[in-house]
């Protein structure tokens, strides 16, 4: 399950093992049989480090979802709550515990807080009169979770909102702690670079924590040569653009959560055995794990979607040829060898089938001409139940999806190249008139604002009015949030510095080669993500060459050095690559990850990258996290 974590430049399995060890130790503290009651949210992140089998080995016999009322019956000695430190969860736990007492069953209670204990939560349990019922109250520090062979995530959705909207920097504190853990396992990182306010804070905290541990240096040869901390708000543009890599598009269209995507079942139905089909066609979405443990996926995930068809067909030929080999197998030995390879071929075949289906699904949305299915359609429908409004809505949104996708992309590219960013955009106007999903509108308007270094007051007011009139006045709260984070803003100075940044950093490349890329701009079919350009320039020729641009981006840029104990200085071999950890504070997109992997693989790149982030995001999930939405009625 986790082998793929150890194939990378840095063996992230060590981190996973440390996390598992911790978990086992806690479970063993609660002797005897146990049942775990899960804060549902945590099962996803935990799934990335442990399987049920691990829990079972430590006598976990039952698992439940946390829910009010009485706990289900289960003949176990211990009940353990795995929860985030949130007050409303404490209330539910208290309810569970109180109703349990009435039944006079002698079960022991424990709480494991993830990622950490909270005094306030414990206080709440005390108020509810149940604190004393717990034998163990502990914390499980789940800061950085190994997400893939070269990717770590804190899986912390609210981090951007908290840091940039609410000025709550708790997630930065956890970032710093996570980085300390990482250094404990992989050695002190000698160089720290950074850009942005939050990056500065994290670096400061790290240096401070290190001082506190002075004298107890880890005696580990450093694995990482440098750390680069980047604030999300130095590059607000990139997540707004539609990602055009295979993995990025899966995320844009279906969403990837904790490494899983939920896909519409239709295209996968045929894969079941003949007899099973027809009995009952699955209506539940097909859930699929996506990571580099799957050979084919690792190969194609970071390609531009336009190169996927070719890649899949090439793979199909190889697999077909492999199966054809059986005709050549004449001797018993040969047949035996063929059979021994079968499982692997089977897996490759089913993987190919799955990805062909996914590619077809995405293609339907991005380029089929007459599809009426709109992927963000149902979101709106849930709020519109009246039939006439529904009809009104249907007529307005009945848009050939692919055409919408294409038009949307065109506008994005215009903005990114600086065309007409100072005028009201008619496509946005049309989308509002058609009542397209609000998030789509917000993504575009924010993008225009970012690419114009703010919108003229008149234009901003116009968009705001149209949005409020069409989607409801309560969205002024969301618009306010977007303004506070700088995603949407009135132009303050007459000078728009985006063109300078674009030209200096070569953010737009005319001839992005999607099939055989020679530059990171392939991930957005022309646009090279700003964040990754900064990373690229830092490696070579260095930031000194772009001082002017760095000054235009918010927050300080800095470099720090951490002393290594004598004898731990790495002597790099001739031609050996450097290893850099890039940490995105506030989220990173799959397309940016793809761009960094591309840089790692460049022959003369000289640097390999490990990526860490608070959360993997896309424009939609990101804007959503900033919305002030009414509670569903």
């Amino acid at each position, binding site marked *: 399950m986790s082998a793929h974590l150890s194939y990378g430049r840095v063996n992230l399995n060590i981190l996973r093992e440390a996390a598992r060890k911790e978990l086992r130790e806690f479970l063993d503290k609660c002797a005897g049989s146990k049942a775990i009651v899960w804060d549902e949210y945590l099962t996803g992140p935990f799934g990335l480090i442990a399987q049920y089998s691990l829990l079972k080995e430590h006598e976990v016999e039952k698992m439940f979802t946390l829910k009010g009322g009485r706990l289900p019956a289960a003949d176990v000695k211990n009940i353990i709550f795995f929860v985030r430190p*949130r007050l409303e969860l404490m209330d539910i736990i208290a309810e569970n515990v109180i109703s349990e007492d009435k039944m006079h069953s002698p079960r022991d209670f424990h709480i494991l807080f993830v990622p950490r204990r909270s005094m306030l939560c414990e206080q709440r349990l005390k108020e509810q009169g149940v604190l004393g019922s717990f034998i163990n109250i502990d914390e499980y520090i789940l800061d950085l979770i190994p997400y893939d062979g070269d990717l770590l995530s804190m899986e912390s959705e609210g981090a951007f909102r908290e840091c940039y909207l609410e000025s709550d920097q708790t997630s930065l504190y956890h970032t710093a702690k996570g980085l300390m853990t990482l250094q404990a396992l992989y050695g002190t990182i000698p160089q720290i670079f950074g850009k942005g306010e939050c990056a500065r804070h994290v670096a400061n905290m790290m240096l401070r924590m290190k001082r506190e541990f002075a004298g107890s240096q880890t005696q580990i040869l450093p694995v990482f040569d440098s750390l680069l901390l980047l604030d999300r708000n130095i590059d607000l543009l990139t997540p707004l653009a539609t990602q055009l890599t295979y993995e990025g598009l899966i995320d844009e269209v279906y969403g990837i959560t904790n490494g899983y995507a939920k896909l519409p079942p239709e295209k996968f139905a045929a894969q079941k055995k003949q007899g099973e089909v027809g009995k009952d066609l699955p209506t539940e979405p097909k859930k699929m794990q996506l990571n580099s443990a799957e050979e084919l996926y690792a190969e194609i995930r970071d390609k531009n979607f336009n190169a996927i068809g070719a890649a899949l067909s090439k793979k199909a030929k190889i697999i077909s040829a492999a199966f054809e080999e059986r005709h050549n197998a004449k001797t018993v030995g040969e047949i035996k060898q063929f059979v021994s390879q079968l499982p692997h071929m089977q897996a490759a075949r089913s993987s190919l089938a799955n990805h062909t289906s996914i590619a077809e699904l995405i293609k339907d949305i991005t380029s089929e001409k007459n599809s009426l299915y709109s992927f963000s359609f149902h979101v709106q429908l849930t709020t519109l139940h009246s039939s006439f409004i529904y009809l009104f809505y249907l007529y307005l949104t009945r848009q050939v999806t692919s055409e919408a996708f294409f038009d949307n992309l065109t506008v994005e590219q215009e903005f990114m190249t600086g065309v007409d960013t100072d005028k009201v955009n008619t496509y946005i106007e049309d989308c509002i008139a058609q009542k397209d999903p609000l998030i789509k509108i917000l993504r575009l308007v924010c993008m225009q604002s970012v690419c114009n270094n703010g919108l003229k007051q008149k234009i901003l007011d116009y968009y705001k009015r149209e949005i409020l009139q069409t989607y409801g006045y309560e969205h002024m709260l969301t618009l306010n949030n977007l303004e506070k984070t700088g995603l949407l803003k009135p132009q303050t100075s007459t000078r728009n510095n985006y063109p300078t940044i674009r030209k200096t950093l070569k953010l737009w490349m005319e001839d992005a080669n999607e099939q055989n890329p020679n530059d990171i701009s392939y991930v957005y079919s022309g646009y090279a993500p700003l964040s990754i350009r900064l990373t690229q320039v830092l490696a070579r020729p260095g930031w000194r060459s772009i001082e002017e641009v760095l000054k235009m981006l918010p927050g300080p840029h800095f470099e720090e050095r951490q002393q290594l104990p004598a004898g731990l200085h790495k002597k790099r071999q001739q031609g050996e690559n450097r290893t850099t950890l890039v940490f995105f504070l506030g989220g990173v997109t799959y397309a940016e990850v793809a761009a960094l992997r591309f840089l790692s693989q460049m022959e003369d790149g000289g640097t390999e990258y490990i990526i860490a982030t608070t959360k993997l995001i896309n424009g939609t999930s990101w804007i959503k996290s900033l919305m002030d939405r009414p509670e569903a009625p």
Partner: protein
Amino acid sequence: MIRGKPDEDDYWNNSKFKAFTFDDEDDDFTRLKESKRAVNSIRSLVEEEDEEDDVEKVSWSGEPVGSISWSVKETESSIRSTGEVRDQSFPKIHTAPSLPKNSSGYSLSSLFKGKAKTGSFQSFSESFGDPSIRNYAPELRKPKSEYKDYVSDWTPEETVKRMQQGKVYSLEKFRSLQDKLLLLDEAVNAHDGNVITAVLIYLKKSLSKEILFRELITREIALRHYIHYLKEIGEQKLLVELFKSMDRTEDMALMQYRDHLNVRDENKRRDFLKNCLSFPFSPDDATHVQDHYTLLERQIIIEANDKQVESSGQADIFKKYPRKASILNMPIITTLYYSCFYHYGESDGTFSSPANIRKTFRISDKQFLLTCLGARAKLKAWFDVDALFTTKNWLGYTKKRSPIGFHRIVDILQKNNAPVQVLQDYVNLVEDVEQKISLAQKYKCHDVIINTYRDLKDRQQLIVYRGKVERSSSEYRKIEEILSNSQLRWKN
């Protein structure tokens, strides 16, 4: 590629933008089919081995069998099926109440979501005393400060450290204002929301609010945490005072406005919004809140009235198109659509008339036209549609005008199944000739095409088009007639 209008193709060919196309030379779609075929053919070969043991088992929902979330489902459902649960069945994981998800779980912001109890959090200095501090990684050694567990004169720095580690600590010894502020600054320095809030709670208890507010002005981060804390425990009054003293009245107004979302009853919600009108919003926001209030006020009146009219069966429109839902809390544009649907032609004086709504809410010409057009076209009221565009000049001639390109009008009409006779009038109004022809072809407005080619004196195109219509049709005859007209001077 999407076969767009010809000019669009030109645009892509000439401009410096590269269109993102999915099926260029190598048609990807055929390739996908190819690989699918390959997959299918392979399957038939190896069907029997489908259940190989070496292949990781995956449940239909895709989780590897044995993953945590799969197992939660499994153990839960097994309990249910064996009937061990008596009075209440435990729900499957996906039907469980969805807990709030969008917070990181790290932050303080996420700590207060529950119902607050007043007078809580009094004694934080009490011990939460299990000092079983474990380091995540065994390699990490304890910092020196930890060995001073039993010394009680901890500095602010040590105190904060101990709080972070969940050890015994005491805040009571920070008595002077200066000490308290040092402690607060130290907590802020640690960026740990849990600790910052705990210190703030102590300060709230031990300082007068005037002094606390004054000190918070210069401490932005602490202030934000304090605001958040007060919000979550529902100390609205104190919060308003705080905002006032900080001169952050706009924030306060927005925050209070936000609460309207929690008011369900429409009359109460209206009153709530009315109350908001006096808040010190920024000028723009003030206008929006005013509009919001006015809108809901009207919706309540319209809803009551229409409900009554509908149930009394007086108006045909409601009989023919019964209302399926109420108009309450819908956006203004939806309300306007409703008004154009059910209240078209009412005098400007009524609250429910489109003209009145348009004026009151300053709806732009474009939006008004689009909404109105949508509603009237839905009802197939083509005469109304016509009237929307007709203007008279001072000589009394009528002319059709539109703030939106007529090609879009055509699209909208077509989507509402307008008959060809109606459509072609509007296709004719499209100024760009090529666009006109492509629209006419798309919607089979033969007359428009034929006349346009005739006016262009384009004999060749006309001949080509003749080949596309049926021989027995009137279009065919019409083309024949034009082609045989010797008066016309063809350009080709």
